[in-house]
């Protein structure tokens, strides 16, 4: 960079447009906020991960205990996955969940917050799923449809990415 615009008319026009406004951006500031308070942030993908595990388990009429037995995941880890949306499971646990429910591993890692998600479509789909799948005792037809649709989306996305 050697020179800047030297046209005073340009500067005056641009200064008028700027009009003493804020020019603040969110990159560094939000990164610092998130680093300080990760537990307070609502993460739509993490919320969807909790719901996905709950619904997939209930669809198979499994208790958390039975799932723990069959998957080899500690009961405490499963409970935290389903009930604590700020808990980040280890990659090994997520891998076992993926194996148990035949779900795409990479997409599940992203949902669990272990991989950064850069596209809004993925976050939007996760947010919609989390919103549509409020917990009830048994799966309704809508929950079943939401679960199937989201699993289809994850599987489709995995194929597209790979």
């Amino acid at each position, binding site marked *: *960079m*050697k*020179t*800047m*615009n*030297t*046209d*005073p*008319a*340009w*500067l*005056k*026009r*641009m*200064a*008028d*447009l*700027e*009009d*003493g*406004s*804020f*020019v*603040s*951006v*969110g*990159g*560094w*500031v*939000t990164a*610092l*906020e998130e*680093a300080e308070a990760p537990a307070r942030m609502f993460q*739509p993908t993490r919320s969807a991960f909790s719901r996905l595990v709950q619904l997939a388990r209930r669809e198979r009429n499994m208790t958390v205990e039975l799932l723990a037995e069959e998957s080899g995941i500690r009961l405490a880890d499963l409970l935290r996955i389903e009930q604590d949306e700020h808990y980040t499971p280890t990659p090994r646990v997520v891998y076992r969940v993926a194996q148990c429910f035949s779900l795409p591993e990479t997409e599940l890692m992203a949902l669990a917050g272990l991989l*950064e*998600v*850069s596209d*809004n479509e993925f*976050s*939007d789909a996760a*947010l919609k799923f989390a919103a549509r799948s409020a917990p009830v005792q048994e799966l309704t037809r809508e929950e079943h449809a939401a679960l199937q649709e989201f699993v289809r989306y994850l599987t489709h996305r995995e194929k597209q990415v790979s």
Partner: protein
Amino acid sequence: MRIDTEIIDNHTGEPVPATLHDEVTIAHFLETQKEWRPVVVGAAKKLHHAGAGQQIPQHWHWDWNRKAPELGLLPIRFLAVECEDRLQGLMKVDLVSHRCRISGQRGQELVYIDYVEVAPWNIKTFTEALGLQPRFSGVGTRLVEAAVRLSQDEGFKGRVGLHSLPASERFYLSGCSMKGVERNLNKQGLLWCEFTPEQAERFLRGEMR
């Protein structure tokens, strides 16, 4: 790097000499925030009293010194506009972490504006709360111009991206004519704004839509 430039002195409405440089360290940055703080606090008290405190983005209330240990570990460089021996604006850019999102140039390299602020005595919200007019104008414009020129120097053809805070959207969309591409759920719903090479060139020539 030190480049002579100009900003507008609002007392006269005319350009005055300023300098764009990259000689700001974290220590200097923290000193600057300390210098800005009394203006922000004074204005914020008046705005809160008038029920208009929400006009100020939250991070303007930060005590940056509390973040010093974290910041000291990072290899950070700033670009700054200086006038009358004071920093009038600061910008931090990142050439690696983000890529273009506009269809047609998706995935291309760009200069990401990670942090940019104009001194509070140049921002209307603060000065009007204190019964004053902004001291200088065009500081934010100069910093955006610097980002575009840096992008050109790096071979990114003027491509620049940023996550605008709501209070700044008018400046980036209407003032600079950047394209508002999408709201990022992973960045608190902030608007991703981007320059294509053509838009960047029009910005530099003052030929916005």
